[in-house]
């Protein structure tokens, strides 16, 4: 059913792709930095500290997107008995974890001038911290368990429990009284952010997405070579 997901075929594409993604990332990231640090206006209330948004928000969006993708891939791998879905999920996890840490650390730095504290056990921040733990559990499971069938089962269970946390992160600012502000950007309704700030945010999100794609491809290629190394042992 998933013949197009044959690792040998995929490798022909994924081995060449990073050399095109890397320069594209550098260009988009450079434009994003100029927009975020120089061209975008300061906020009337938060002044220049609003610029932290251009790294904090894309990192948070991408980590949530990656965790959702990992869950879908793990479940698909389990349902369709396709090992390649698990390898893709495993290759996505490192960048998801790093983006999660970036979102937490930059959020903490932004919290100091805005709320007067580096950390608060607020619903949004705490649920993001819980997501880091799920990423760590997912990655540790791959390191701890030798048996492939066992690791597929355990990582799928981790993602099923972890995905419950994703809507909690998204709606925590609506469900509870939190220090964290509600979403300024809505896909279905009008966004409350000005276009002069939305443009750098979109460019930085594109740059972060390209970086996670680059890391994913490099990690995925490594995983495929690892499999081929085992194949050579069996010859």
């Amino acid at each position, binding site marked *: 059913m998933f013949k197009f997901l044959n690792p040998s075929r995929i490798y*022909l594409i994924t081995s060449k792709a990073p050399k095109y993604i890397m320069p594209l990332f550098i260009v988009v990231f450079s434009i994003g*930095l100029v927009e975020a*640090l120089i061209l975008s206006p300061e906020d009337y209330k938060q002044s*220049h500290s609003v610029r932290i948004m251009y790294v904090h928000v894309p990192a948070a969006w991408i980590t949530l997107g990656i965790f959702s993708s990992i869950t879908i891939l793990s479940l698909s791998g389990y349902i369709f008995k396709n090992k390649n879905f698990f390898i893709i999920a495993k290759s996505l996890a490192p960048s998801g974890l790093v983006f999660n840490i*970036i979102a937490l*650390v930059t959020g903490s730095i932004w919290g100091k*001038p805005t709320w007067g504290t580096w950390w608060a056990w607020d619903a949004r921040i705490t649920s993001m911290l819980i997501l880091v733990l799920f990423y760590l559990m997912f990655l540790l499971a791959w390191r701890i368990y030798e048996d492939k069938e066992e690791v597929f089962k355990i990582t799928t269970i981790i993602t099923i429990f972890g995905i419950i946390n994703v809507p909690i992160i998204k709606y925590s600012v609506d469900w509870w009284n939190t220090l964290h502000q509600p979403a300024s950007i809505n896909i279905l309704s009008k966004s409350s952010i000005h276009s002069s700030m939305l443009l750098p945010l979109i460019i930085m999100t594109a740059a972060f997405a390209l*970086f996670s794609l680059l890391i994913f491809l490099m990690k995925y290629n490594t995983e495929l070579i690892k499999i081929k190394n085992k194949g050579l042992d069996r*010859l």
Partner: protein
Amino acid sequence: MINDFLYMNGYGSYVWSSFAFTFFSFSVLYIIIKIQYIKERNKFISKFGALNSEKAQVARNQNINKEILSRSQSI
């Protein structure tokens, strides 16, 4: 002007440290993943070199193996 840009109305340390942390995280992640890739590829090349001619011929028939060997310089 440069000082104003760096100072950012007193928020410079927060803004610059956020961007610096992001850049640092990107660099560390990239280097770790790249090292893992190079290690695994070198392992493959040395294992491939240790095969006898018959086994090497079997391995060479697989496109993916040829591709890994041909990409010894780039990622």
